[in-house]
């Protein structure tokens, strides 16, 4: 019997099976941020177990509230910072070098095909874009990960999603994943890994694959996962060039983490994306999804471009294509957060930041704080935000606010008009 990607990774990392169906895996990466890790650190200290299993496999960043906004968040940052120093965790990213966790860790080359990755953050599934098994966990699992380098999971069952056809101009990975979640439902992949296959994936950049895998959790999925291929190798090459003779050699090695042709899946879905239109959410659940056309004309008060879903350079480029030569509506507050310092500098070098500022956007430092109303960009009661983020729960960006999820292009177009707008209309018109 053939194996899925997750089954291969599980078999290669199995430390123990304490009970039938419970797999305890060795971890290659334990990723940490300043919200869920300080409580884990405090508890380990309280238990007299202030140790780490391997400082080189632990990476940490201050992400959500940065720079700290008050005494409580300053304490969270301090606990993480002191702990990283105490245990010689070299890959710790503090103010000035920090950014959104699921953007900065892949950007540094920390994630490889076949890896097991956990983090106290539900969107850890993003890292599956590299052919890794990457799962969000709570603070207790994180604690055990830090202490022992292991995590327990149930036997992984996999849903296979085949994406065929060709994406039209103005339609992106974000529209694909919103559509998939709309079809699966918020509970459709609970306790399942979602494997993405097909020519659409083969044609996607690593950034787009990360956008796709990022939202697997919004259908309940443990991990979204793509097969490693030449695109993966090319992305990782600067970090692996000392390990392999050539990209071809790396590819040959990484292909062992692809699914077998006769692997068994819990379910298989086929989606032809050729006729897919830009998508947007309309309610308080990420599976409340409609084509943008059906939501067009609805007022927005704020537009937020950023987050672990869509704060990468290709996202900023697509938004800037719409914004170049245009101003955002007077009724709209535009906020853009480049996800990492590297992305920020790249956007500066390409003139993208200038485009955003000319259009009337506020540019923030790299952080994911606005997505969950933790630091900046909080909505007032009754306000509506067009956002490139991943979650539209009631109160997510502030009590009484409403969040509509969409691609960076749709968000930029909506900023220009002040209402939800199909970006393709603006792509067709020359800017004034």
């Amino acid at each position: 019997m053939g194996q899925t990607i997750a089954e291969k990774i599980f078999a290669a990392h199995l430390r123990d099976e304490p009970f039938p169906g419970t797999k305890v895996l060795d971890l290659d990466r334990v990723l940490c941020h300043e919200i869920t890790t300080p409580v884990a650190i405090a508890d380990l200290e309280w238990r007299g177990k202030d140790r780490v299993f391997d400082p080189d496999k632990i990476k940490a960043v201050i992400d959500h509230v940065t720079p700290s906004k008050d005494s409580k968040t300053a304490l969270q940052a301090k606990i993480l910072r002191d702990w990283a120093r105490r245990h010689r965790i070299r890959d710790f990213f503090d103010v000035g070098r920090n950014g959104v966790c699921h953007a900065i860790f892949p950007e540094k080359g920390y994630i490889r095909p076949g890896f097991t990755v956990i983090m106290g953050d539900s969107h850890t599934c993003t890292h599956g874009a590299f052919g890794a098994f990457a799962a969000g966990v709570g603070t207790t699992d994180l604690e055990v990960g830090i202490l022992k380098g292991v995590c327990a999971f149930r036997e992984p069952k996999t849903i296979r999603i085949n994406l065929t056809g060709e994406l039209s101009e103005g339609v992106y990975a974000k529209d694909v994943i919103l559509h998939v979640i709309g079809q699966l439902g918020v509970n459709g992949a609970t306790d399942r890994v979602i494997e993405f296959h097909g020519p659409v994936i083969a044609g996607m950049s690593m950034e787009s694959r990360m956008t796709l895998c990022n939202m697997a959790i919004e259908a309940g999925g443990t991990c979204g996962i793509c097969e490693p291929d030449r695109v993966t190798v090319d992305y990782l090459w600067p970090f692996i060039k000392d390990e392999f003779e050539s990209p071809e050699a790396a590819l040959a090695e990484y292909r062992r983490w692809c699914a077998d042709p006769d692997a068994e899946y819990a379910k298989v879905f086929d989606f032809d994306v050729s006729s897919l239109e830009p998508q947007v959410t309309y309610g308080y659940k990420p599976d409340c999804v409609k084509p943008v056309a059906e939501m067009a004309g609805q007022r927005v008060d704020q537009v937020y471009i950023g987050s672990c879903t869509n704060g990468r350079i290709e996202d900023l480029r697509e938004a800037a294509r719409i914004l170049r030569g245009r101003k955002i509506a007077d009724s709209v507050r535009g906020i853009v957060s480049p996800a990492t310092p590297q992305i920020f500098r790249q956007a500066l070098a390409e003139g993208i930041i200038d485009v955003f500022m000319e259009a009337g956007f506020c540019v923030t430092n790299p952080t994911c704080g606005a997505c969950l109303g933790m630091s900046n960009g909080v909505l007032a009661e009754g306000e509506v935000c067009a956002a490139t983020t991943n979650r539209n729960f009631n109160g997510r960006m502030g009590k009484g606010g409403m969040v509509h999820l969409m691609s960076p292009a749709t968000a930029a177009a909506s900023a220009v008009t002040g209402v939800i707008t199909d970006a393709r209309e603006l792509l067709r018109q020359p800017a004034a």
Partner: protein
Amino acid sequence: MTSKQFGGPALLLDRSDINTDEIIPAKYLTEVTKEALQPYMLEDLKLDGFDPKSEQVRQARVIVTRENFGCGSSREHAPWVFEVNGVHTIIAESYARIFRQNMFNCGMLAIELPKEDIDSLFAMGRAGQLVVDVDVDGQRLTARAGGESREFGFDISPFDKALVLAGGWVEFADARY
């Protein structure tokens, strides 16, 4: 053996997909102790007629709810806010994976029952205050309301049961690995 008390007066939340932002909003994640979360349980829950400050919420030791409970964030603050309010047992049709694991990792009980059993519990709860007794070892629970009493069996994986009995995953893992 855990010192937690499983069972007691139940709070009925008749909705699916109750998410972690509704259980404990992100703005409270700046707290670094579990106890500080205590006043904010279910503060943003969207459910007609629900008042997070009601006496019924204050007295609850069990929550009965529908599908996909605890979806969304990995924040363990969600089980903790229940724990510090004395709610150690949740009974639902199904759970989001991370939330369910967090419950057992904290030595708490996330019981899954089929829809028809959950329907019965809601029906009983409409007749009077629902009180639930839980026998973890026997994997049975007794529900009482308005003079009626019913028993339900439930499944719990051996691993989850071991975590509840050990009082959580940290001690279990540190002793074994």
